[in-house]
C-alpha cells in the first residue's frame, strides 16, 4: 500500500469532499485489497458522509475451518457497496448443533444471511483421504450419508429461520488418491465428490432462499495449488493461502450484494472506443474496429458480455458524445454489432455533460441513480461521474480493450441469484415503454391516454410461481412503495400461509404487451381492522392509475372479510415521494400526522371506512381476479 493513497483519502475527508473521498477509498481498495487495506477502509468509510444510507446486514458463518481473516475484507467490500455488515462466526465444526438447536446463537442472532462453509475433508473425511481403500458400497453409503445430512440440515434450518442460506459446494482434490487412474474410472474420487455437488444443487433449487456457492469452481479459478496453504492448515486450521482470502471475501460479496438489493439495475454504455474501437465520427462506419479478428474481437467480446447482462435482466442504455446519425448508423447497420437499438431502453447520443445525461436516464428509466452502472473507456468521464454522482457504480476499465469484457464480467453489481420471467423479458418491456411514452405525448388528454392503453389488471393471491418476483419487488421497489418493507421469499411464503394475511399480486397488460407482475399488496386483518402492511407498484406502471384498481380490490376484499376499516401507513424515505399522496387521494382520513408534514416528513397513518362505494376500479381498466393457490 502506498502512503499517497492514504493521504489522498484523508485529505479529501478533511476537506469534506465526500465524493472524492469515496472515489479515493474505492480506488485504494481496488489497488490494495487485503487485511490492512480492509481495516483502513472500514475506519475511513465511517467518516465519509455520503448520500445513501447503508443497509444493515447480519451474516452468520457456520464453518469447519478458520476463515476469520477474510471477514474484514468482506466487511470492507460490503461497506463500499452500501452494506453495513455484522458477522457472527460459529465455533469450529459446531454447525450441526447450531442448525438443529432452536435456541442456538445462530437463531438468536436473527441473521439475514447464513453461510455454511464446510470443507470436503471435514464432511467427508473417508472420501477425501481414504478413497482408494473404499469398496463400491462404502462409497455409495458415504454419498448417501452426506446428501442425507445436507438435506436434513437445510430442512431444519428452513423450519427455524427465514434467512437466506448459502452453502459451499465441495471441492475435489488437486491430485486424487489414485493419481491419473482416477480419471479412468466413471466413479472415481473426483466424480464422486461432483455427484454430491450435483445433488446439493438439486436440493437448493427445490427450496426458496437456499443457494449454492461454487467453492470448487472458486478454488480452481485461482488454481488449486495456489489456493491452499498446508502450513496454515496444520498450524491454524486455515486451509486458504493469505493472498487468496480476498477472493473468498469477493465471492461472498457477490452473494450479499444481490441479496441485500445493492446491485445495479441498468448499465449505461459509451460507444466510441468502448463498444467498438475508434471514433465513428472520424473513422466512419467501415473504419471502426469491430469484428471477429483482433483488434475488433476485443470489442466483440465486450458486447457479448453485455448481451449476457441483458439476458439476465439488466437494462441497457447508451450515453455517448457523438453525432446521433453516425452512432445510429453503426448500431443499426454495422454487420458485426451484437447490440442493436432494440437492446437499449434509452439513448443519449449528444454533446451534453454525461452526469446530466445520467440523471435524465435514471428519471426516464424510473430507477434510482444508485441503480446505474457506468461503462466508459475515458478516465476523465469516469472521474466526472464519480465526483458528480457518487452513487453511480462506475466500472473501472483497464488500459487494454482485451481486458474490458473481463472487467464487466467481474463486476459484482450485476450478479443475480434468481431469474424471474420478468427479468428475462425486461429489455422488451422497456422497449415497449418507449412506444407508450410516444403515445402519451400524442394523446390529447390523460384520460384519453389511459383509455387508449386498453389496460387490463389481473389481481391474484401470490403463488409458488410468483413468489420470487413478489419478494424481489418488495426488495427493489423504492419509489411507489408506501412502507418500503423488504421481505425475503420465505417471509412472503409464510405470510401467504398465515390465516389473517393476504398477499396480492398485480399483473398489468396493455395494447403494447404484458408488463408482467408489477404490484404487490399485503394485508393483515384483525377483527374489524384491515391493515395494509405493504403496497407497492413497480416504476414501470407508475402514473397509470392501476394502483387504484389494486386498492379498490383490497377494500372490497377487506369489506367482504368483515372489516369495517382499512388502515395504512405512509413511511417516508428519500425516494418514495411518488406514493406520498396515495391515501389522501383515495379518500382516506389522516389518523395521525406530524405537525408540519412538508417540513418534517414522518410516518403518517390513514384510514378508510368500509364499505366505500367511491373507491372503484377506473373505468379504463378492465379488471379481473385470478384464483390463486390459497
Amino acid at each position, binding site marked *: 500500500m502506498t502512503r499517497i493513497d492514504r493521504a489522498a483519502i484523508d485529505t479529501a475527508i478533511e476537506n469534506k469532499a465526500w465524493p472524492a473521498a469515496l472515489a479515493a477509498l474505492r480506488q485504494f481498495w481496488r489497488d490494495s485489497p*487485503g*487485511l*490492512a487495506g480492509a*481495516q483502513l477502509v472500514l475506519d475511513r468509510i465511517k467518516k465519509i458522509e455520503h448520500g445513501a444510507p447503508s443497509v444493515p446486514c447480519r451474516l452468520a458463518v457456520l464453518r469447519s475451518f*478458520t476463515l*476469520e481473516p477474510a471477514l474484514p475484507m468482506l466487511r470492507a467490500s460490503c461497506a463500499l457497496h452500501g452494506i453495513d455488515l455484522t458477522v457472527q462466526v460459529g465455533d469450529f465444526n459446531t454447525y450441526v448443533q447450531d442448525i438443529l438447536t432452536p435456541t442456538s446463537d445462530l437463531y438468536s442472532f436473527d441473521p439475514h444471511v447464513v453461510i455454511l462453509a464446510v470443507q470436503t475433508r471435514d464432511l467427508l473425511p473417508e472420501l477425501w483421504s481414504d478413497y482408494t481403500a473404499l469398496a463400491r458400497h462404502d462409497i455409495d453409503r458415504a454419498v448417501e450419508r452426506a446428501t442425507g445430512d445436507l438435506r436434513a440440515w437445510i430442512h431444519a434450518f428452513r423450519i427455524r429461520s427465514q434467512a437466506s442460506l448459502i452453502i459451499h459446494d465441495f471441492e475435489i482434490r488437486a491430485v486424487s488418491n489414485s493419481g491419473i487412474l482416477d480419471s479412468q474410472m466413471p466413479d472415481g474420487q473426483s466424480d464422486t465428490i461432483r455427484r454430491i455437488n450435483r445433488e446439493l444443487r438439486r436440493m437448493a433449487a427445490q427450496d426458496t432462499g437456499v443457494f449454492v456457492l461454487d467453492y470448487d469452481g472458486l478454488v480452481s479459478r485461482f488454481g488449486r495449488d495456489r489456493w491452499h496453504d498446508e502450513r496454515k492448515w496444520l498450524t*491454524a486450521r486455515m486451509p486458504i493461502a*493469505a493472498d487468496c482470502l480476498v477472493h473468498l471475501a469477493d465471492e461472498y460479496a457477490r452473494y450479499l450484494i444481490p441479496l441485500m438489493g445493492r446491485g445495479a439495475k441498468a448499465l449505461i454504455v459509451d460507444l466510441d472506443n468502448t463498444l467498438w474501437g475508434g471514433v465513428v465520427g472520424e473513422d466512419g462506419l467501415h473504419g471502426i474496429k469491430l469484428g471477429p479478428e483482433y483488434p475488433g474481437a476485443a470489442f466483440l467480446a465486450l458486447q457479448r458480455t453485455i448481451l449476457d447482462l441483458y439476458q439476465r435482466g439488466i437494462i441497457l442504455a447508451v450515453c455517448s458524445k457523438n453525432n446521433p446519425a453516425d452512432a445510429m448508423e453503426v448500431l443499426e447497420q454495422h454487420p458485426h454489432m451484437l447490440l442493436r437499438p432494440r437492446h437499449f431502453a434509452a439513448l443519449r447520443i449528444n454533446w451534453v455533460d454525461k452526469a446530466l445525461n445520467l440523471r435524465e436516464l435514471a428519471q426516464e428509466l424510473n430507477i434510482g441513480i444508485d441503480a446505474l452502472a457506468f461503462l466508459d473507456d475515458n478516465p476523465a468521464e469516469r472521474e466526472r461521474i464519480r465526483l458528480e454522482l457518487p452513487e453511480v457504480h462506475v466500472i473501472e476499465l483497464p488500459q487494454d480493450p482485451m481486458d474490458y469484457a473481463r472487467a464487466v464480467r467481474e463486476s459484482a453489481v450485476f450478479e443475480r441469484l434468481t431469474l424471474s420471467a420478468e427479468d428475462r423479458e425486461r429489455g422488451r418491456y422497456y422497449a415497449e415503454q418507449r412506444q407508450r411514452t410516444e403515445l402519451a405525448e400524442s394523446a390529447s388528454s390523460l384520460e384519453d391516454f389511459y383509455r387508449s392503453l386498453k389496460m387490463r389488471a389481473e389481481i391474484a393471491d401470490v403463488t409458488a410461481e410468483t413468489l420470487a418476483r413478489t419478494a424481489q419487488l418488495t426488495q427493489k421497489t423504492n419509489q411507489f412503495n408506501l412502507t418500503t418493507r423488504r421481505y425475503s421469499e420465505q417471509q412472503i411464503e409464510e405470510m401467504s400461509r398465515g390465516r389473517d394475511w393476504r398477499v396480492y399480486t398485480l399483473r398489468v397488460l396493455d395494447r403494447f404487451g404484458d408488463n408482467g407482475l408489477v404490484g404487490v399488496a399485503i394485508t393483515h386483518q384483525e377483527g374489524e381492522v384491515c391493515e395494509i402492511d405493504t403496497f407497492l407498484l413497480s416504476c414501470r406502471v407508475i402514473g397509470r392509475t392501476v394502483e387504484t384498481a389494486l386498492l379498490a380490490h383490497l377494500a372490497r376484499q377487506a369489506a367482504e372479510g368483515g372489516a369495517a376499516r382499512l388502515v395504512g401507513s405512509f413511511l417516508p424515505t428519500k425516494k418514495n415521494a411518488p406514493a406520498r399522496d396515495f391515501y389522501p387521494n383515495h379518500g382516506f382520513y389522516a389518523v395521525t400526522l406530524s405537525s408540519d408534514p412538508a417540513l418534517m416528513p414522518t410516518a403518517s397513518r390513514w384510514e378508510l371506512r368500509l364499505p366505500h362505494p367511491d373507491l372503484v376500479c377506473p373505468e379504463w381498466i378492465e379488471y379481473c381476479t385470478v384464483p390463486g393457490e390459497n
Partner: protein
Amino acid sequence: MASEATVYRVREIISTIFNLSLEQVPPDASNKSIERWDSMGHLLVVLELEQAFETQLSPEQTEQMTSIPAIAAIIDAA
C-alpha cells in the same frame, strides 16, 4: 538489532490491523500492551506480515513474534 525502517513498517502494519494510530503502537509494543492482539489477532498479524514482506514464516517463528522488536528481528534475519 532490527533496522529502524523495519520497525516502522511493522508498527504501521500492526496499527492498521488493530485500527490504532501509529502513536498507540510504540516500538516496544507487544501482545500484552495491545488488547485485541489475541490468538485470532495474531493470525491476522502473521498473514499481513507474510504478504507485506513477501515471506513465509515458520510456526516456530510465528510463535516468537509476540512484540514489535521480536517481529522486526525475525523479519530482518529472514
